[in-house]
Each structure stands twice: as structure tokens, then as C-alpha cells.
């Protein structure tokens, strides 16, 4: 095989297979270029940036719809793109659709709140779309490099977005804190990544899982080898980077400050899209490291298109992916040993995620009690929900270990359902906060008192959203919580049972602070000197468009539930 055929196969792989499935990202890239160019060109600078952004986002949304339509998530076969750097399966498709739908809604919201005016719009939307592309890479990541790339691509624009409101000290402070913290976390993560890749000789998730199998961890642990420690350390360091994106305790400190300092819209962006992408990445890493496909007779043979470009000449620069030798037959025998070779990895991941999730959830809920600023309160609520959403990942890994792959994909489906419902709840909440800020120049909870008299519709919508965040049936927020508890129950290990009990107790715990806001709005008397609240037609319509699904999906969650179930079904073949 010479260089020519290599390049040929590479080109055909890229053009015919990878790029069509990379459509939404390409559309967003093009939109960014158009946005930035339009400012320079004399005639085009008349077009408001929001129009370009809106067209771009809608096109990306259309591009993100799976080829066979919305109900065909189950038919999407898992395939690797760009020689294994990314993976395209039902989960990727679902999360991309989710992110693009969020982008569309977010562009509309930004226009309605007026944050992206004529001068700033180009910068603002380019940053948002840039971060969204990063998130798309995160959700489809199949390689340590793309994992890191995605995290950074999503983070760096977010740092700027946090400080986009110029001339506000708090905003700049938030951006600086976020950037410094993020840089630290990224450094640690990168170190962990290099350790992992060095130890396992690969950065490609499926290959790494195979290497872990070959690594024969049980024997090494029994021999008290130091490599095991290094491996665990590397895993922890990668976990630090993920925990930072997830705002999981103890790497959550940036979250309240950034949410309080940044504008409400950006806070909504960070709490919905960024969290969803981070969770999807957590699934990719956790499942990628702990799940070996049952077709282990072909262990070691990379995907066919990768195999083509995997000759002996190691100095070919594209050989990022599958550096494994044809170490086929001997590793298959390992799987039959009494303790599965991946079991130590699984119990490590389950324990890590399980413990972090309950600490995060409980801490977030407790810290939210004392908050006076509504954005800060919702920041802690986001932390708590992130903890809740991490739980099904732990359950899924545990279920994979027990061989219950169907139940494991149910657990991931629970996470997807959670993320989707969470979009409506939190985007709605932050939209209301942004509108109220525009209307009464305040984000303090006490200034919401007596809102029911000033703007009954907003008060009712906000109350509905808050109770949905508690997880009170028949509102939509209940169903994902139920699915999470179910998956934890099904995993049936002492740790996860404890996690389930803590999670259930947290529901009651979180009631108090959400209820306090609802009480302030609906029961408390209006304070003297509060300004009247005036909301335009479109603003009200947007709030309703967020709050109505919270009620309707609560009454009939069947469709979304089925989509998520189908999307997750392809994860474990």
C-alpha cells in the first residue's frame, strides 16, 4: 500500500462518509464565517446579524434531523467518522438534534431580550455557534483527542460569553474566574489524557477498552503493581476535566459566580447546552472504557476503513487512532476468566460517579437555600440537577457489568429524557429572568414579590417551571427523575441503592427553595416602589412556548420517551 491509496481511501472516507454526517457542524461553521464577513462587506452589513444567525441555526437543525426522519433513531447504525475520531450513532444524532434545537431557541431568546444588538451580534452569535460546534464534538467524541478538543472548543467561547456584557465589573470578574478555573482544569485533564494514552498505547476509546482487557487488571491489582495506581490517577485527572464541565462538586466553584455575573441568557446556555454536552461526553468516556462489544472474536481488528490506513509505516501522520497490532486471539481468552478484566474499571467508574453525584446533588440543593439572587439560586439548582443526571451513567456502567445491556441503555435513555425536559425548564426559567431583568432591572428574589398581581401569566409559568424542577407529577420534570430512580434501582448494588435513597431524599430537600420563590411570587405582598412589569407579545409567547411543554410532556411523555429509548438502544449492540 503506497501513500497514494492511503490518501485516496482517506479522502473517500472523509468526503463520502464522514462529512455528510457532519452536516450540522459544517452549517454552523459556514454561518460563523458569513456572520463575520457580513460585517466587513459594505452591502451586507445592513443585514441584522440575528437574521443570519437564525437562518444558520434553522438550517443546522434541519441538517441534524436523521435521514429517515425523527422516529428513526433506532435504525441509525453506529459508525465511526474521520477514521475513528468521532462516532455517529443514535445518541450522537439525538444530542446533535437537541443542541441544534437549543441553538434555534437561543437565537430567538437573544433577539427577544435584546442582548445581541446590531454591534455585538456578530461576536455574540459566532461565540455561541463556536461553542455549539465544540459541544457537538463532545457528544460524538470517540477519541481522547476529540474529547479534549471538544471540551476546549466549548469552553473557550463560553469564557468570552460570560463577560460579553461590557463595562460590568461582575461580568468581567465572572469571565476571568471561569477562564482561570477552566484553564487549570484543562491542564489537569490533558495530563490525565496523556497518561491514559501512554499507558494504554491508544487514544481511541474502543481500542482503549480492548487494551484494558488485555491489561489484565485483576492480576495486576493482585500483584500491587504501580501501573494500576497511575491508571487510576489518570482516570481521576480526566474526571477532573469532566467534573469541571459538569460543575460537579468539588469543581463547582465557578458555577454560581459565573451564573451571577454573566447575563441570564448566557447562564441559560451554560446550564442547558453545556451540561447536556458534558453529560453526553461522560457517557462516551464511561461507557467507552467499560463496555466491550460482544463480538470479541474480532478483538483487535479496527473498523474496516481504519484498517485500510493502518499499515506498518508508523510514521504516517494520520495514525492517531488505531495503533494496535493485530493482537487478536489471545485477548479473547481473557474474557472467560472468573473476574471480568474490565470489572475493576467498572467498579472504579461506578464508585467515582456515584459518590460524586450524590455529593453534588446534596450540596447543590443545600447551598441553594441561602441564596438571594435568583440566578445564583438557579446555579446551585443546576449543580444539583447535574448531580442527578450523573446518576444514570453510574447505573448504566453497573448494569453493563451485570450484562443487562437493555437496562443499561434504558438508563442512558433516562439521561437523554432528563436533558430534554431540562431544556424546557431551565431555558424557560432563564428567559423569564432575562425578561424580568429588562423590565425591572433586578435579579433579586425579593423583587419578584407579588408578581402574580403584576404579571399573572409569567408568575404562573414560572411557578409551573419551578415545580417541574422539583419533580412534582404531573409536570414533566417528574418523569426523568423517575427513570433515573428506576435505573438505579435496577442496578441493585448497595452503593447505587444508597444513591437512589439520597436522590429521592434530595427531591424533598429541593422543594423548600423552589417553593420559596413560588411563595414570593404568588403569596407575598408586592413591595412598595416596584416597577410595573411589561412584556411584549413575543416575550410572553416565548415563555409560554417553554412552559407549555413542561405541562404537556408531563401529561403525555410517551413520544419523547420513545425517542430517547430508540436513540439509546444502539449504544450496546
Amino acid at each position, binding site marked *: 500500500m503506497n501513500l497514494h491509496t492511503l490518501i485516496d481511501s482517506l479522502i473517500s472516507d472523509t468526503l463520502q462518509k464522514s462529512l455528510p454526517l457532519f452536516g450540522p457542524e459544517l452549517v454552523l461553521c459556514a454561518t460563523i464565517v458569513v456572520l463575520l464577513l457580513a460585517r466587513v462587506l459594505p452591502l451586507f452589513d445592513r443585514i441584522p446579524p440575528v437574521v443570519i444567525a437564525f437562518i444558520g441555526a434553522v438550517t443546522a437543525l434541519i441538517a441534524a434531523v436523521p435521514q429517515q426522519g425523527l422516529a428513526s433513531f433506532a435504525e441509525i447504525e453506529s459508525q465511526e467518522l474521520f477514521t475513528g475520531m468521532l462516532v455517529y450513532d443514535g445518541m450522537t444524532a439525538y444530542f446533535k438534534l437537541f443542541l441544534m434545537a437549543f441553538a434555534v431557541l437561543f437565537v430567538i431568546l437573544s433577539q427577544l431580550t435584546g442582548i445581541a444588538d446590531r454591534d455585538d451580534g456578530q461576536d455574540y452569535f459566532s461565540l455561541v455557534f463556536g461553542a455549539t460546534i465544540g459541544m457537538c464534538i463532545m457528544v460524538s467524541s470517540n477519541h481522547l483527542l476529540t474529547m479534549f478538543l471538544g471540551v476546549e472548543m466549548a469552553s473557550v467561547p463560553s469564557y468570552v460569553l460570560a463577560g460579553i456584557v461590557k463595562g460590568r465589573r461582575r461580568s468581567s470578574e465572572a469571565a476571568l474566574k471561569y477562564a482561570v478555573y477552566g484553564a487549570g482544569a484543562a491542564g489537569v485533564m490533558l495530563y490525565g489524557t496523556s497518561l491514559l494514552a501512554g499507558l494504554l498505547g491508544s487514544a481511541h476509546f474502543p481500542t482503549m477498552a480492548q487494551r484494558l482487557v488485555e491489561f489484565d487488571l485483576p492480576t495486576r491489582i493482585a500483584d500491587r503493581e504501580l501501573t494500576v495506581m497511575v491508571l487510576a490517577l489518570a482516570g481521576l485527572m480526566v474526571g477532573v476535566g469532566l467534573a469541571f464541565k459538569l460543575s460537579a462538586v468539588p469543581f463547582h466553584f465557578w458555577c454560581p459566580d459565573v451564573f451571577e455575573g454573566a447575563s441570564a441568557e448566557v447562564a441559560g446556555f451554560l446550564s442547558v447546552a453545556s451540561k447536556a454536552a458534558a453529560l453526553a461526553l461522560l457517557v462516551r468516556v464511561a461507557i467507552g472504557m467499560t463496555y466491550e462489544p460482544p463480538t470479541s472474536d474480532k478483538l483487535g481488528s479496527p473498523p474496516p476503513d481504519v484498517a485500510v490506513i493502518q499499515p506498518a509505516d508508523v510514521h504516517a501522520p494520520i495514525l492517531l487512532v488505531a495503533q494496535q497490532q493485530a493482537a487478536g486471539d489471545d485477548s479473547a481468552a481473557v474474557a472467560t476468566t472468573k473476574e471480568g478484566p474490565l470489572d475493576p474499571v467498572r467498579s472504579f467508574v461506578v464508585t467515582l460517579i456515584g459518590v460524586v453525584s450524590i455529593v453534588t446533588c446534596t450540596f447543590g440543593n443545600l447551598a441553594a437555600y441561602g441564596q438571594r439572587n435568583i440566578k445564583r439560586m438557579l446555579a446551585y439548582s443546576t449543580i444539583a440537577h447535574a448531580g442527578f443526571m450523573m446518576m444514570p451513567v453510574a447505573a448504566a456502567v453497573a448494569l453493563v457489568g451485570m450484562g443487562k445491556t437493555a437496562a443499561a441503555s434504558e438508563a442512558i435513555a433516562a439521561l437523554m429524557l432528563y436533558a430534554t425536559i431540562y431544556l424546557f425548564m431551565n431555558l424557560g426559567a432563564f428567559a423569564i429572568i432575562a425578561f424580568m431583568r429588562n423590565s425591572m432591572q433586578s435579579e433579586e428574589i425579593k423583587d419578584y414579590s407579588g408578581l402574580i398581581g403584576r404579571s399573572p401569566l409569567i408568575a404562573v409559568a414560572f411557578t409551573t417551571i419551578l*415545580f417541574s424542577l422539583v419533580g*412534582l*407529577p*404531573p409536570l414533566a420534570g*417528574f*418523569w426523568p427523575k*423517575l*427513570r433515573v*430512580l*428506576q435505573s438505579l*434501582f*435496577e442496578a441493585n448494588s448497595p452503593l447505587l441503592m444508597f444513591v*437512589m*435513597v439520597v436522590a*429521592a*431524599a434530595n*427531591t*424533598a430537600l429541593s*422543594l*423548600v427553595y423552589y*417553593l420559596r420563590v413560588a*411563595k414570593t411570587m*404568588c*403569596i407575598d405582598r408586592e413591595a412598595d416602589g416596584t416597577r410595573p412589569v411589561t412584556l411584549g407579545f413575543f416575550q410572553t409567547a416565548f415563555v409560554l412556548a417553554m412552559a407549555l411543554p413542561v405541562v404537556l410532556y408531563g401529561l*403525555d*411523555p*410517551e413520544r419523547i*420517551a*420513545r425517542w430517547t*429509548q430508540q436513540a439509546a438502544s444502539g449504544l450496546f449492540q
Partner: protein
Amino acid sequence: MNLSDPIIYLSLMVFLPALGALALAFFPRGKEEAVRYTTLGITILTFMLSLGLFFDARGVEFKTGVADMQDMFSAPWIPTFGIQYLMGLDGISFPLVVLTTFLSILSFIASWSITKHVKAFCILFLLLETGMIGVFMALDFFLFYVLWEVMLLPMYFLIGVWGGPRKEYAAIKFFLYTLVGSVLMLIAILMLYFNSDLTLLNPQQLVHAGVVKVEANGPRSTPESAFAEWVESEDDALAKRFREIKAETDPAKKRQLHTFNILALQHIGQHEDSPFNREAWLGKSIQWWAFILLFIGFAIKVPSVPLHTWLPDAHVEAPTPISMILAGVLLKMGGYGILRICYPICPAAGYDLAYIVCLVGVVSMVWGAFAALAQNDFKRMVAYSSVSHMGYVVLGLGVWSLGMWSATTPGSFTYNADYWKMGVNGAMFQMIAHGISSAGMFFCVGVLYDRVHHRNLNEFGGIMARMPVYSGFAIVIFFAGLGLPGLCGFIGEVFVVLSVWKYSQLLAIISAAVVILTAAYILWAIQRVYLGAEYKGPHGEALTPMLPREFVIAVPLTVMAIVLGVYPQALLNYMQPSVDQQVQQLADWTERFDASREALKKSLGEEEEQVALAVPASLPATPAALKTSIESSARPAQ
């Protein structure tokens, strides 16, 4: 729309108030009278629908003397999660549904005096009614749970917005207590769901649980043939999975068919190889833990001592109509849950813990009565009387009196569930009677409070002279609460106390003695409020005679109190067959359970008595498991 279909008729009954609430949301501002009359119309219409079940007016009828579920229907709701829209009525739920619709009208008339945010009040009130009716009809555990929670939000705001001075504290206390209870319930639901197995049931039980439908004639007229056809049907996803699981012979690969169907769970719980008997934690079985969690959840609602502290606060702060609903209907849900869910699904745990449940009931009775004696606030006194009266319900439900040791032949035990049936019937009767008398008592307090704006028992007196008609009604209703023979409160109490005598004489003596305490606090209250020479408290000039509106509320309550007291059969005819059947099933189950335990003891012999004692202490052993352990332990003895 065809009203003769139960799914339409019963759904309409449940959701008519919610639809009304939705319609009210679009009423323009300022039309308060119109909003009130619309709401009243909707509550009356709902009541008419529930009355329609007494007659065969529309083809949907509730027949007397039938023990099984009637008018049952099911439809898929969230098939992905295995949740059904399954409802039905039997003698346990039907009286409670009628009570709910009846009290809804009366309490809405009582809320005519509310002038603050009338529209919001009406919307929340109607949503509350939907939740209440739905809880009593739901037969899918999840539907039950969702509707149970539906009531929380309206109730929170109804207390929190329209309540008294400490309304916010009372409202959040109510909310938190109930939410903690329902979280426990949720965990129990998951425990039961993941251990349930529909494939254990025989065709008859599947028909009874509404999984398989029997037609009046044609090929599906008997349970067996209907089952045979159902299990072969291709279009039913459940039947398909049922068939697959049944076909799996390898026990290692055998999976379970989980279900949320309450009736199916009851059969699974009483099955001899019940999967709920597996050990869960600390040597106790799954059903033991589920029973504990569910019982705590329901005991909060009842409320039983020591989980009752939300009730006095909520009652005192809530406006009069909401107190009526709270005492009249919401507390009954606790009792209903214990009867419908705790005992039939977790019989072994109920058997094990029967004495503790009875003790909780008796402690509530005594505690509530003493606390009521100590109150100076009229409404608080009535609230504590509710705690005491609902103690009878818990006691009656918990009584597991099985039969008697023979006097002539020592050691022979005859199983006879008659007293047990009497206790449960008494508890059910007490729930309805208390629904009427406590709603009436709160109404009477409200009438006075509307006029003089205080509730201090020591500042009343001489009301009889100022408001003779009202005082007449009030005294009848208070005597009904006291349990005077001839009024509704008597029947339930006497049934319960009689049945307890067979179970535990100590508890029977204590519970009978509570009657004296009850008489003391009620008579003392009547004396301090209604009797006496003249009224000396504040706002004496406002003590005007009863309004026609108040008259309309007082008359039906008084009439019902008298009718049920004089002719209890009117209620028992509807209620008794279902209650008796459920108790009989549990009694049969207990007989089987005792027999298997006895067999185990005997086979173990004298010298291994310690083992024999240890095994029944950990109840989870199934009869099948017992058999094997008997065989294995018997062998060395030979």
C-alpha cells in the same frame, strides 16, 4: 361521545373539574359571580355524574352486592414505562368518590364568602377535586401516585394564599410532610414494581386484575378461554411478552413481567411463591420494607401520631372550605391507601406488623383526644379530634383477628374472619362518617369565625340564645362526631372496638375508654360555646342568624349524619361485599401461611425448636422454600 362506556363516563367524572378549571382560566377579569356559579355548576355536575352510578341511567352503573371491581377500564398511557390508564370502582372506593363529590359542592358553597382572587381560588379548587376523585378510582399504582401528587400544589396555594396569619408556615409544613411521604411511597412502588411478575397469575386472576378482558358472550366468555385467546393475540404487546417469558424454560434466563397494576400486585403479593418474599435488607423481606415505607407515607396523610403535627397547623390556618375538604376527604386517602395497597399487596408484612399498626391507631386516638381536651382554639380542638377519630380507622384496618382457640379441645384453632371483616367495615364506615361529621364541625367553626373573627373557646358562650337554628345543627353534628348512638359516628366506632376485643383485649379497653375522652372534649366544647347565659366575647353585635347559604350546607350534612346513624345499611350494602371479599382473601392467605409455618415447626422436631422459632421470625421464607428446608432438615432426624 358515548357515556355508556365506562372509560368515558369515569374519565369525565375525574377530569370534568380539571376541564372546568382550564375553561375558567380564560374568563375575563372582574366576572367573579360568573366564575363562582360556573364552578358551582361544575361541582354539581360532577356530583350528578357520581349519583348517576346509583342508577342504570347511562349504562354505567354501580351495582350493590358485587364484590369485584365494576366499570373497570384500561387504556395505554405511557406504554414505554409500562404505565396504564386503569380505573375502576368497587365497594371500597365508590363511597369515597361519592363523599368527595358531595363535600366538594358543600365546601364550595362555604367558600362563597371568599373575595380575594376568586378566579384563582376556583381554578385551584377544581384541580384539587380532580386529584381527589382520581386517587380513589386509579388502579394503576403510578396513576395513583401521580394523582396523589396532583392534589399537593392546589392545596399548598389554597392554604398559603387564602389562609390565616401563619398560612405560609402551615402550607409549607403540609407540603413537606406530604412530599416526604410520597417520596417514600415512590421508593416502595419501585421496589414492588421491579419484583412483580405478571406471569405468576392464573387466568382467573388476570381477568380479575383487568389484564385480560372477558366478554359477556362469544368465545371470550370464560376466563380460561379469554386468556387463551389473549395470550395468542399478536397485536397486544403485553400478551406477546407474556408468551415469550412463559415459553422460556431455562430458569437462569427467566425474566419477569413487571406491572404497576394494583390488582395484579395484590394477587402477586398473596401468591404462594410471591417474589415479594425475597429477602431485601437486614433479614427482612421486600414486602416488609415496602409495607413500612407505604405505611409511613399513608400514616402521614391519615395522620397518625407521631406524624400528625402538620394537621393542626394546616387546619387552623386553612380557610373554612379547605378545612372541610382536608378533614372530609384528604385524610381518607391515607386510610384508603392502607386498605387498598398496604395490606393486600404486602400481607406477610401486614401480618407481622399488625400489632404495631393497631398500636399506632390506639396511640393516635388517645393522643389526639388528650390534645383536643387541652385546646383553647376551637378549630385546633376539632383538628385534634380528627387525629383521634382517624385513629379508629387505622385500628380497624390493622386488626388481624383471625378466629378463636377452641374452648373444648385445646390447641385447635378455627379460622373465622368475621371479626376481622367487622373491624375493616367499621374502619371504612368511620371514614365516611368522619368525612361528614368533621366537615360539618369545621363548617360550624367557620360560621362562628366569619361572624366574630376569633376562635377562642373561653370567649364564647350563649350562642344558643343568639343563633338557635345554627346551634341546633351544630349540636347534632358535634354529637355525630362524639359517636352518639343514632348518629353516624357510632357505627364505625362500635364496630372497630368490638373487633379489636378479639384481637387484643388491652387495646380494646383503651380504645373503648377513648370514647369517654371524646365525650369530654366535645361536651365541654359545646358547653363553652353554645350553652351559657350570654355571649361576652368581641364582636357580639355580628352574631346574626344563619344565612340561607349556610343553611344549604348544614342541612345535608345533618341529614346524612342522621341517616347513616339510623340506617347504616344504606352504606354497608355498597361497601360490605368488597371489604368482606378482600378480608376473606387475606384470611385464606393467612391460613395457608400459618399452615406452612406449622408444617415447618413440626418437621423440625423438638430439639431444633430454636431454629423453628428463628425461621418464622424472618417471614420471607416462601412455602416452596419452606418445603425444601423442611425436607433438608427432616433428613438428619431420620
